[in-house]
């Protein structure tokens, strides 16, 4: 019987609809092929590492995607999140509150290759409300002060011995001496990297307080004299033209700026030694000129140098293969990739048992490593407190918007700080309302 085209069309449309809403059977044999989707950067989880793992586990296929947060939000909204998510430790509270990542406490406690006692304190970013949600792949004290010795000496600065405690105020004076201008163009900024939320938290902790209240429901900015003083100092350094600013920004960022001579000193993490070393032959500043000091101190007697958040792995709540995902997690954190990362110099291992693999091929890298070891013994490298109700990027965005108005002369510094306080607290309130 001739079937009309329209009936065929309706039949196909109905079939497509039925197939799309019917769930896929979940029953799988033990060795059934499994595809794990890992949201991680290619440079952090290389094709070779993937190939080595899949060769040893033939039933596992790994598909790597970039861990872009906007994409992650879309994938979660679509119900197709990756199995493993690489993220910053500072994002953990946010991810937990959005129900994105899995509580791994029982897996850590029963693991035969990862010991909670072997973890460095910086892993605390992945411990939220007493539960473990992942761990760092590596980390770095991220607020070290790195200065170009050649530029400092040219400006008449006598640098103190390595591992000396240097104050922010001293660094500001040096920045003024090292700044070079060609007319009104800033050819070398004396310094770069002040004023972000991480610095603010370090200063607040030095003063015995914190940026946030105990329960994270509000931020204490305008009522914290140390924070007000610090923000005013950082803003005036920008106003006076000794550092890049929202109205005179760098065309690039800290590491390339130091390499190209666009900045004479930066606040950056230990991890940058690897980037300086890798690009040493590319016609840039000789990295042996770069001296790394401990993090700057506001009061001159203590150093807080936490990791800004580190980077690590978590397992998504949407994974269909939690056991396979955990096996890959353990391999990445303790196996060949972990050893490779420790040897590469891009960061400090997150497990003490891997410290022995760290190496410093050059004298200047050895000086940097000595400073890290000094900080591990003498500074507070514990995690900073991450507010679960909003993103730290929001703090920086609000502050830079206020800074722009202050530097343009539209508002006073007190108004800028008051607006920052109001804006951050509004963002926290909005985040609480989302719960």
């Amino acid at each position, binding site marked *: 019987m001739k079937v009309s085209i329209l009936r065929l069309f309706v039949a196909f449309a109905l079939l497509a609809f039925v197939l799309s809403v019917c769930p896929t059977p979940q029953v799988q044999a033990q060795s059934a092929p499994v595809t794990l989707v890992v949201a991680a950067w290619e440079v952090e989880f290389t094709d070779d590492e993937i190939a080595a793992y899949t060769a040893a586990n033939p039933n596992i296929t790994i598909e790597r995607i970039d861990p872009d947060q906007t994409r992650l939000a879309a994938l979660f909204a679509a119900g197709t999140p990756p199995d493993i998510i690489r993220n910053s430790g500072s994002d953990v509270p946010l991810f937990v509150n959005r129900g994105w990542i899995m509580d791994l406490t029982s897996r850590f406690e029963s693991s035969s290759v990862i010991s909670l006692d072997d973890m460095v304190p910086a892993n605390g970013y992945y411990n939220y409300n007493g539960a473990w949600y992942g761990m760092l792949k590596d980390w770095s004290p991220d607020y070290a002060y790195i200065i170009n010795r050649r530029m400092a000496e040219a400006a008449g600065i006598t640098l103190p011995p390595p591992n000396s405690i240097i104050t922010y105020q001293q660094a500001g004076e040096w920045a003024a001496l090292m700044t070079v201008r060609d007319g009104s163009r800033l050819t070398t900024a004396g310094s770069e990297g002040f004023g972000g939320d991480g610095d603010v938290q370090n200063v607040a902790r030095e003063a015995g307080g914190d940026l946030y209240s105990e329960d994270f429901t509000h931020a204490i900015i305008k009522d914290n004299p140390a924070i007000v003083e610090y923000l005013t100092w950082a803003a005036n350094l920008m106003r006076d033209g000794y550092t890049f600013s929202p109205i005179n*920004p760098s065309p690039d960022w800290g590491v390339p700026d130091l390499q190209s001579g666009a900045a004479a000193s930066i606040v950056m993490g230990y991890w940058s030694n690897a980037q300086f070393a890798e690009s040493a032959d590319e016609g840039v500043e000789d990295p042996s000129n770069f001296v790394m000091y401990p993090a700057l101190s506001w009061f001159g007697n203590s150093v807080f140098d936490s990791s800004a958040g580190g980077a690590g792995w978590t397992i998504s709540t949407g994974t269909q293969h939690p056991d396979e995902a955990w096996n890959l997690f353990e391999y990445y954190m303790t196996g060949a990739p972990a050893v490779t990362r420790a040897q590469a110099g891009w960061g400090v291992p997150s497990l003490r048992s891997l410290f022995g693999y760290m190496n410093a091929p050059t004298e200047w890298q050895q000086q940097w490593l000595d400073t890290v070891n000094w900080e591990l013994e003498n500074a507070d490298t514990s995690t900073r407190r991450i507010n679960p109700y909003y993103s730290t990027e929001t703090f920086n*965005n609000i502050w830079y918007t206020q800074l722009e108005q202050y530097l343009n002369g539209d508002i006073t510094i007190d108004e800028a700080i008051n607006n920052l306080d109001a804006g951050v607290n509004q963002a926290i309130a909005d985040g609480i309302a989302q719960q």
Partner: protein
Amino acid sequence: MLRNQVGVLSTRNQPQFLGMGSRLWRKMGWFYLFLAPWIMGFLFFVLVPMVIGFLMSFTNFNGGNFNSIRFVGLDNYAEAFGEFFSNGDAWLALQRTLSFTITSVLVNTIIALSIASLLSGNMRGRTIFRTLFYLPAMLPLVASIWVFRSLLDNNVGALNAILDLIFPGTHVPWLTQQAALSLIIFTAWGGLGGAMIIYIAGIQGIPTELRDAATVDGASSFQVFLNITVPLLSPLIMYQTVLGVIGGVQVLVTPILLTPGAGGGGGMSISTIPVRANYMFMVHIYQESFNRLRFGYGSALLWILFALILILTLFLVRTSRQWVYYEVDPDRKPGE
């Protein structure tokens, strides 16, 4: 044999469904079959997302956690209108957006019309010039912005270096304190080619006798352009204006990527917050949705933007009766 409403022969003896015979259904089946891809695309990629977005605007959805979704009624809209009446970020962003849109549409129209008029005549090398003016329209947007940012950089940009040679000591902060101007220049540079091509086609459709007659009567070139060419091109100008307004109000990527990283961070990130002069309404929506994870509030702002675009478009259409010349009466009914 009877004819049904669409004039297709049918017989009383054929099976009837909804008053139509099977032959008619077969014809209509082919019609809908070929239309099906577009219908499915419209349904799943336009209508369904619009409905979801509209429903989302009444919730506190944060983009990831479905367990904590709550219906919040009109709170998101109330907050948005509250910002409009209290000089909040949304209102400031909307003001800048409207200012940018009006300026960029005017600038683009004037420049594109002028160049189209020049390149419609018999000048040597007009093909080369047309190609050169159209090239920016073919370049990838992000790459173009990257190059512009490098050229306009405050300290190391080529433009300031050239200006410094001509006027020593010149240092224009193109990307910060002149950010709005830079955005308009970039938008004009990128949008010129497409508009120019359309206007050239329109100018070439104008009967030469009209221009010749005006010239014989003593009109200058400018008078011919103003009194003959522009009125006859007015439908195209209207079309370009409507598209320009709709595009201008929705500008998002360019102001973000044209801004160097906040605090000197460099790079090109969609999360970068632009300088205030380029903090547009869509940028504000993006920040609220993807940085602050307030998808519900962001959806409310998007629907307000949709309503605004609708109002602006209707305004342009209504006012076009005053300045757009149609060779046929637009109010004429069929058959008159």
